[in-house]
C-alpha cells in the first residue's frame, strides 16, 4: 500500500471504478434529492454511466443501452458518507486481534496512517452499504498509553475491494478535552501544549529539513516521520480533526487554528451550539452525533438535541457520526431525529452526504448527484430518514451492489427454519450462488 511518507505528497488514488462491470443505468420516476445546485427534482431521472453520474434531471435523454430502473414513488439520494468510521480496521470491537484503530506507546503518532491496515473485505462493509453507506473516512483513534495524536485517516469507497482508497491521507486526527488531558498527563493545558509544540516543531522541521538531517538543528520531541506528517496539515491541504466536546475546548481549538493557520474540524462538539457564531466565522465544520442530549460528562453539560439545528442555523457546516461503524447504517436515523428537532430536511440529508464530502475535500467527487460525480446513488423505499425505509438498490461507483450481507444470509437461513423444518439442519442451507 502506498502511503505518503515525505513532503506534500498525499495521494489521491483516482478511483478506477468504471473499469469494473459498471453498466449504464437510468433510474426513472423518482423524487431525486441532488443536494447540489439542481435541488430536489420530482419525477426525475438519474443516468449512471462508466461509474459516474452522466445526467440528472426531469427530462433527460436515456441512452439506448441503459438498464432502466423504475423508481416511481421512491426517493433517490447520493450514497451516504460516513465522516468517521473504523471500516476495515475493526471487526469485533471486543476482540483485540481484529482491531487496528489505535496504537499504544509513543513510537509514532502523526505519522501513523490507517491505510495499510484497511481490510476492504470486512464483514461490516456489506452490512452497511446495503443500507446506503457508500463512502467512509476511516479514522484512527487515540487510546490509553498512546498520545493525543491518533494519526491520519483515509477516505475509502465501500463499493470495491481493489481500488478502495479514494484519498490518503485525508485528515489528521487529534484528541483534546478530557481524553486529551488524560493522555497528556492529566491536564488540558498539557494536551494543548503538546499539540502546539508538535505544530511548531513540524513547521521548524519542514523549513530546515536539510539542517535537521545533518544534525545541525535543535532536537524535537517528535520523530522525523511524525513531524513530516504534519506538512499537509500546515499547508491546509488536509484538515486536522480535533475531538472536543466543551465550549471552552472548542475555543482553544479555534485559537490553535488561528495561530497556525490550519483547517480544523470539531469532532464531537456536544457544546458546539454554544459557540456556533465563532465556528461559523472561522469556517470550522462540526462532526457530531445529534442524538446525544445527556450531560454524559462534565464536558458535555450543554448537550442538546437541538445542537445540529442551532449550528446549521448559524451557518456551520455539520456532518453526522454514529460512533459505531457496525451500525453506520443508522446515519439516516440520526439525520431524521435532527430534522425532528429543527434541522431543515435537506440540511439533514446533506449532513450524511454532501457535507462530510465537503469537509474532507471530496465534494468534487461524491456527496451530491451532479454530472461527473461518482455513481454513488441510493434508491430508497420511502423517506430515507425514516427508520422504516431502506434502500431497494444501492449503486457505488456506478456498480449495482449485491443487496446481501452476512446478516441477510443468517436471516434467510433461520427464516427457512422458522417457516418449515427441513429434513436437514439449517447449517445445510446454502445461499444461492451468485
Amino acid at each position, binding site marked *: 500500500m502506498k502511503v505518503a511518507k515525505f513532503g506534500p505528497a498525499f495521494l489521491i488514488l483516482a478511483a478506477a471504478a468504471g473499469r469494473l462491470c459498471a453498466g449504464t443505468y437510468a433510474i426513472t420516476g423518482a423524487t431525486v434529492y441532488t443536494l447540489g445546485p439542481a435541488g430536489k427534482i420530482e419525477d426525475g431521472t438519474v443516468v449512471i454511466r462508466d461509474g459516474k453520474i452522466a445526467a440528472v434531471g426531469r427530462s433527460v435523454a436515456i441512452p439506448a443501452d441503459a438498464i432502466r430502473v423504475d423508481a416511481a414513488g421512491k426517493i433517490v439520494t447520493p450514497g451516504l458518507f460516513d465522516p468517521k468510521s473504523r471500516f476495515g480496521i475493526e*471487526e*469485533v*470491537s*471486543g*476482540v483485540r486481534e481484529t482491531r487496528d484503530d489505535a496504537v499504544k506507546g509513543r513510537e509514532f503518532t502523526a505519522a501513523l496512517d490507517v491505510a495499510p491496515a484497511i481490510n476492504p473485505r470486512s*464483514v*461490516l462493509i456489506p452490512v452497511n452499504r446495503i443500507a446506503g453507506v457508500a463512502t467512509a473516512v476511516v479514522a484512527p483513534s487515540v487510546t490509553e498509553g498512546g498520545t493525543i495524536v491518533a494519526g491520519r485517516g483515509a477516505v475509502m469507497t465501500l463499493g470495491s475491494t481493489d481500488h478502495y482508497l479514494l484519498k490518503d491521507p485525508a485528515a489528521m486526527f487529534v484528541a483534546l478535552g478530557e481524553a486529551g488531558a488524560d493522555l497528556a498527563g492529566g491536564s488540558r493545558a498539557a494536551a494543548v501544549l503538546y499539540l502546539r509544540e508538535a505544530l511548531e516543531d513540524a513547521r521548524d522541521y519542514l523549513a530546515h529539513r536539510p539542517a535537521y538531517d545533518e544534525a545541525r538543528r535543535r532536537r524535537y520531541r517528535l520523530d522525523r516521520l511524525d513531524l513530516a506528517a504534519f506538512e499537509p496539515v500546515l499547508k491546509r491541504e488536509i484538515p486536522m480533526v480535533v475531538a472536543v466536546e466543551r*465550549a471552552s475546548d472548542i475555543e482553544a481549538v479555534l485559537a490553535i487554528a488561528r495561530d497556525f493557520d490550519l483547517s480544523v474540524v470539531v469532532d464531537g462538539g456536544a*457544546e458546539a*451550539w*454554544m459557540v456556533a457564531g465563532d465556528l461559523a466565522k472561522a469556517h470550522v465544520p462540526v462532526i457530531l452525533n445529534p*442524538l*446525544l*442530549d*445527556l*450531560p*454524559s*460528562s*462534565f464536558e*458535555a*453539560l*450543554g*448537550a*442538546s*438535541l*437541538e*445542537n445540529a439545528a442551532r449550528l446549521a442555523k448559524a451557518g456551520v457546516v455539520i456532518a453526522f457520526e454514529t*460512533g*459505531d461503524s*457496525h*451500525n453506520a*447504517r*443508522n446515519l439516516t*436515523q440520526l439525520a*431524521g*431525529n435532527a*430534522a*425532528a*428537532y*429543527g434541522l431543515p430536511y435537506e440540511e439533514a440529508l446533506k449532513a450524511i452526504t454532501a457535507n462530510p464530502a465537503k469537509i474532507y475535500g471530496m465534494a468534487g467527487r461524491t456527496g451530491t448527484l451532479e454530472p461527473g460525480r461518482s455513481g454513488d446513488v441510493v434508491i430508497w423505499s420511502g423517506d430515507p*430518514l*425514516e*427508520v*422504516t*425505509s*431502506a434502500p431497494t438498490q444501492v449503486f457505488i461507483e456506478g456498480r449495482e451492489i449485491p443487496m446481501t450481507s452476512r*446478516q441477510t444470509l*443468517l*436471516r434467510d437461513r*433461520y*427464516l427457512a*427454519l*422458522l417457516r418449515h423444518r427441513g429434513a436437514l439442519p439449517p447449517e445445510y442451507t446454502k445461499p444461492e450462488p451468485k
Partner: protein
Amino acid sequence: MRRRWRGVWAAVTAGFLAGAGCATAPARSGNGAVPAAGGASAEAAPADSSAVEFPPDPFPSTYAPLPSKTTVIRHAHVYTGAGDEIADGDVLMRDGKIAAVGPHVDAPADAAVVDGKGKFVTPGIIDVHSHLGVYPSPQVDALANGNELTNPDTAQVRAENSVWPQDEGFNTARAGGVTTLEILPGSGNLIGGLSVVLKNVPSRTVQGMKFPGAPYGLKMACGENPKRVYGSRKQFPSTEMGNVAGYRQAWADAQDYDARWKAWEKEKKGAPPKRDLRLETLAGVLAGRIRVQMHCYRCDEMATMLEVAREFHYHIAAFHHAVEAYKLPDLLKASGTCAAMWADWWGFKIEAWDGIVENIPMVDAGGACAMIHSDSEDGIQRLNQEVAKAWAAGRRAGLDIPEARAVEWMTLNPAKALGIDDRTGSLAAGKMADVVLWSADPFSVYAKAEKVFVDGALVYDRDDPARQPESDFVLGGFSGGGGR
C-alpha cells in the same frame, strides 16, 4: 461505542464497586406485597415451597401517583398495546386508571379534553433493561455503581441501593415515552443481584419511584462478561463451563439453605440457621417470588440455561440481549421465556457477532414473547424508533406483523417479562393509566411523545415547560433545552 457499552462491556471492565445492599424479599406468602408472578403472564411460577421466612421489604415503596384529573383523549389513532388499534378512538383516564377505550367513550363533563386528531396513543413504554441511576450521567467513576465485581455471585446486592435518582436520564427517557423501567445490576457477575422496577416519575428517593408490588428480578449473566472479569484475575469462572458450574453450585447451595431452614422450622429447636442474604435471594427465586432476568446472547447458551432452570425448578422470565434468539424461538416458546432484544446492535463482541435486525420479528413470528430493550441511556429515549426499525425489517423479510402487534414489543410484552402485565402495559380498563400521546405515528422518526401520563398524572408535556422536570444535577448548567 463507548456509551453503548455501559451495561455490556465497559461496565464490567471498569471495576467500580456498587454499594452492596442487604437483600431480603417480602414475606414468602400471604402478605400480598409481591405477587409471585404477573397474573396474566404466559408462564406459571413454580409453587412456593420455600421454608425461609423473609422479613418485610426493607426499602418499601413510597410511590404515590402524582395528582391527576379525569382526562379524555379524543379522536386519536389508538394502539392498545394488546394487539388492537382504533383509527379514531378515545381514551378516558380517571382516578389514575384507564376507565374506557373505544371509538367513542363518554366522559364526565368536567374531564379535561385532549384533542388527539392526527395524533397517536400508546400505553407507556416499558424498558426491561436499563442502568439509569446505577450508571448515571455524568459517567464518572464515583457514580458508577452497577457492577459489584468482587465475587461472581452477588445475589445479595440490590440495584435499588445504587440508583441515583438525580440521573437526568430518567427525565430524557420520560420525554421519550418511558413510564416504567427495570433497573438492573451489570453483567460482570454470574449472578449480579436484584433488579428494581421503577415508575418513571421524578423523585428525591428511589423508594419514591418503586413500582408498588412489582416483583423483583434477579440479574444473571451468561457468556463472555463474567468469564472475562474473573478469568482475567485467574479466578473462577474463566470459561463457559465454569460459568455453568457456577450457576448450578449457587442453586445447589440455595436448595441446601432452604432445606436447613425447613428443618429448623419443623422443630423450632435451638438457634435458627444464620441468615445469608445471598442464599436467601436465591431461595426466593427457587420459590418463584423473584423473577430471573438473564443476560444471554447466544442460542446455545440460552438452551443450556433452560436446562439449568429445569434441573433446579426455576423459571427464566426473560433472556436479555438475546442477539441470537431468532435461532431458537421454538425453545423460548416451549419454556414460556421471553426474549428482550435490541433492534440492530451487533459486532461489539463475539457473542454479538450474529445479530440481525429481523431478530425481534422472527422471535415473534416463532410464537415466543418478544420485546425491545435499551441497555442505553440514549436508546431508551427512542424505543419506538427501535421497534419501528425491527418491524420494518421484518416486513421486508416477509413477516407480515401488524404495527399494532409490534407495539406490544415495547408495552405489553415487557410488562409480561416483569410480571406486571395485570397492572400496566396495555390500555385496558382498570389498568394504570400509563399513557403516551404521540405527535405522529410512533413508527415515524419524526414522532415525539407530546404528553406522558403515569397513573393518570401528566408527568411530561412537550408544550408546557412546567411539566418538563429537570434533575438537580442539570440546574444552573447549560441546559440544552428543547426536550434537552
